[in-house]
């Protein structure tokens, strides 16, 4: 995930309803009308949210009889989390080193050579 793709993913996830839809359909397929019943908004509005998620690659749509089914794309969702988790890992590492610094005695290069 990079550049424009990542921008679409994070833009798509910036909306509460869309995040909620992703969380739902990652666990199992839902029809668009199913989703529309869950939110206090028009069918067209929900359809629009699904379209944004689809463009970002976070969900995919397919037809089952007369129904439009929406399914979560687990790979893309994981990618988005991966970016944030890695930045968190960077800071966890930094904070661990700061901790070592501020709690060790103020002697530079105190690593003793015991040989």
């Amino acid at each position, binding site marked *: 995930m990079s*550049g424009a793709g*990542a921008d679409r993913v994070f833009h798509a996830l910036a909306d509460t309803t869309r995040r909620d839809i992703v969380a739902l359909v990652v666990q199992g397929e839902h029809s668009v009308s199913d989703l529309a019943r869950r939110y206090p908004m028009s069918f067209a509005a929900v359809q629009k949210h699904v379209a944004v998620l689809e463009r970002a690659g976070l969900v995919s749509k397919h037809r089952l009889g007369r129904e439009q089914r929406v399914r979560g794309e687990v790979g893309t969702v994981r990618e988005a989390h991966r970016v944030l988790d890695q930045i968190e890992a960077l800071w966890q590492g930094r904070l661990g*080193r*700061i901790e070592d610094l*501020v709690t060790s005695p103020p002697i530079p290069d105190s690593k003793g050579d015991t040989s």
Partner: protein
Amino acid sequence: MSVTSVEKDTESLTMTITAQFDAPSARVWQVWTDPRQLEKWWGPPTYPATVVGHDITPGGTVTYFMTGPEGDTHHGWWRVSAVDAPHHLEFVDGFADADGNPNPDMPVMNISVSLHEESGGTRMQVTTVFPTTEAMEQLAAMGMEEGMTAAMGQIDSLVMTESG
């Protein structure tokens, strides 16, 4: 140390990390303002940082580079926007070319550090605002290094434990 919270806001591209240290704020402040101490923690262990210029005053600049395992160097800079010792530091963090000159084509991040003394220790809050998801990707690559280092550290301590 305990990381008390990590908040990731994908809407405003902001990450806020709060940690508690068992040291006075003046001591925690030094890790930001003493270049030799900054070198000990800014870069992942596989990409240690060398601080070249270090002027922590409003409008001042910090320049640094990180050296990778292949001897590859990655330059960066800070432009200090606010200083209130030992409580608050705010700066813009960006990428630079091989000569250390800011690269105008690369995104910059806004970092704000707050220190509060609390029950004998210091609570540090670091807020990073990313301009684009591209900037997040670039920083994520460094986080991947941390992940690998953490894994290697675990192996190290395992080996040390087993050999007694």
